[in-house]
């Protein structure tokens, strides 16, 4: 799994590639990366999941932990380009109601206040 972080104004965009699963995280987790950004004062984060093939429960947990940290810091987390399958998992778990999910990166960026 590769994660590249880029900036679009005050928004930090995580371009994630590969599979988000426990075995893929080596030195630092997705949550750690989110926390680092929050510490640096970045409160608007977009997860671009366009090139994500698979997310296991650990991966969802990472996104959830990030969501909580961002929320507690008064920031915003948005998700873009989630696959149909992940969308359905989110629907089953009701996370579709919690997360702010957008079809495209542009839609998500436009939605940040």
């Amino acid at each position, binding site marked *: 799994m590769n994660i590249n972080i880029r900036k679009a104004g005050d928004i930090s965009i995580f371009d994630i590639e590969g599979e988000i699963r426990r075995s893929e995280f080596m030195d630092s987790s997705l949550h750690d990366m989110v926390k680092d950004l929050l510490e640096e004062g970045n409160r608007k984060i977009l997860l671009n999941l366009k090139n994500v093939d698979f997310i*296991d*429960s650990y991966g969802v*947990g990472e996104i*959830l932990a990030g*969501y909580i940290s961002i929320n507690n810091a008064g920031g915003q987390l948005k998700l873009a380009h989630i696959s149909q399958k992940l969308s359905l998992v989110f629907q089953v778990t009701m996370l*579709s109601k919690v997360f702010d999910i957008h079809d495209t990166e542009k839609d998500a960026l436009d939605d940040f206040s």
Partner: protein
Amino acid sequence: MKRNFLYKFFSRFMILYPGEEKTALLFFSYFFLITAPHTIVKSIRNASFLDTLGKDSLPYAYLLTALLTGLVVALHTSLQKRFSKYKLIQFSLFFFILTAVIFWSLFPYQYRWLPMVYWVWANLMVVVLMAHFWLTVNEVYNPREVKRLVGFFGSGGILGGIAGGGFTKFFAGAALSNHLLIFSSVLLGAGMLIVSGIFRQKTTPRNSKDETKPPPKNKSPAASIQPGWKTAFTSLKTNSYLTLLAVMITLSLIVSTLIDFQFNGIIEQSIQGRDNLTGFFGMFNAGLMLFAFALQLILTGPSFNRLGVKGMLVIYPLSLLVFSLGLVAFPVLITAILLKGSDKSLSYSINQSAREILYLPIPSSLKYQAKVVIDIFLNRIAKAAGAVLLIVLIHFNLNIRLISSVSAVFILGWIIVNLQVSREYIRMVKQTIKRKWHRAEKSVSDTLDMDYTKLIFDILESQKRSPALYAMFVYDLIQQGKMSPDVKRIIAQNTDEAKVSSLGDLFNSEGSSFSTETSFNAEELTTNIDEIMSLDDYQKVIDLHAEQLIRKDREADLEKMELAKIIGLMPPGSGLQAKLPFLIRDASPEVARFAMESAARIKNEDSILAIFECLENPLKREDAVSALAKFQDKAVDHLRPLIFDANVDPDARKAAISVLAGIGSPKAADALISLLPKTNAGLTSAVIDALDKIRSEKPDISFSPVKIQAKLLELIKIHYRMLIQKEEGGKANKLDRQDLKKSLSDSRSNIFKLMGLIYSHNDIMKAYQNIQAGTKKSAAYAFELLENTLQKELRSLIIPLVEEYPPEMRRKKYKQIINALE
């Protein structure tokens, strides 16, 4: 309707329905007119035989009779195929008139062989005429009618016996015994006229099937229901009940032969001279017929209610056992008279009636075959067996005492067989009638998994509501392992193309890829979602979301429904379960329904109270009933106070009772039974129906009979009061009459349901349904089943409750029972 004199007269003595009086009187007369000559012919038979040949020749007479009976049965079978029953009966009567005249003309010559030939003829006449009489009775009347009227017909026969005995004594006293046979012929001639009258009456609509006509000539004998030798014997061999009947009758006739020999042996020693003997037999036969008549009046009918078939079958051999042992101790004339007297009197009264009733559960075609073989052929074969036994006993010079001891052993065997017959009889009656319907819940649950069906419907409904809800339901289906190809097809038919494609990929139970490279199946999917739901962060996030949702009003109903659903899918121990009571108390019945279903699914006891409150809300009640039932015994303790609280809304109490019925455990049943004595009219039906539901689904569950019996008596009393009200309510308006009719119907149903709790539920329901909605014949078997199943006290209350008495009898009968109950 104006009743005629005959009806008015006879209905004083028995249960007679309008229109039955003429046929009943004809049968009474028919039996009288064959029994009177039968008694005369038998008296002459015994007197002439003992006077000319002596008692030691009797076994040979028995044997010869048996051999010739075989020929008679063969001839009878052959004639049956050619002629109608009517012609056969008339022909037989004419044959016996003619031959009686021939014997009358031969007796003055005092040929030594004549008493032997006469003995055989007399016995054949008795069995043929009796068999024809009972065949005609069985053809004209259904089993219930036979049972009701058999006492009346039997009385005709017994009176015939008394008259025959009286005539014999009179003719013998006037030294005219030779002319008795002419007198018998005259009586048989009158019998021919009566038979003609019966068969004319038989062509009423009730018996429109005219069996008096011979079968069509082109019909093959094999296709005819008329019996052949082979079929008749095969049916005896292959039907265990008929085999038992045959054994029972064989044993009774062997015993009867032994008793006849003992009696005649002692008479031969005590009375000499032909006229003295004829006179004695005439008096004796008349006396025993009087005794039999008294027994018939006192016992037949009421005795069936008191003893049932079992008691009836045992009382006869038991009394013979007592007198046989008496003869072992005191081999004198009086003991012999008592033994023979009890044999014949009980045989003509109780035993004859019981025997005819034993044929009732046999299908009519088989019954016809069996009766001919048993009543005519086996009758004589058994006598022959008794004769052979006697020849052996005489050969070893056994005296009357020892023969009585042997007889007692046979009687013991006979009693054992009778007990077995009575058990088989009840089994046969049970087999004869079928349940007409089962409780709707049972029929549905036998063919349908209700929860599963509901889930499918919810899935289809959720498609219209929200994709999230839809996904949750489909996941639920997968989690329960119920996503079959058929279900997928049903779901797909109701889904637009995009959804079909996505769900088809994700929820493919055969395996699909969550990613293009990684294979993913349903099990993996559920594990993954379970793991997500177990995450602390997930719980925190959803909890926060739930807090916000619960505070929202009706515009968030859909999301609340999603929340309620997802909580039910979460692993055990989730803190979110604490949100369920709030959702159950939500104003929206739909949100409450989803929450109650989830609470029931995860058995969340903290939600019971909230669900319980929903019983009082008509919009939430049904879902609350369904949810509470899933808590099983955990819900019972919560429900107890509600069902006993008279201040609670009656509908809520009824709903609580439905929950207990749905739980169906012994604990739930116990709560309902405790409530039974305290219910008012409104709740009684609900409680009884709930108990009936439990009993029908769990026949092994046992109920304490004390409270049930008390309630049963209370309901029976109320039912009789309503019946009297119905009889007296001539001026009541149509609406009142309809209400009363419904109340009676409900009350009857409740009474049977209560009986179904203490007796075999299936048997009681069979009886109830066939009395309510069966044919006249199946209703008759239903009565038979009740009479042989219920204890005597209850039987005497229940039978009149369902019996359709003639209008004149009803009020009187109902009042008698009410008085007895009070």
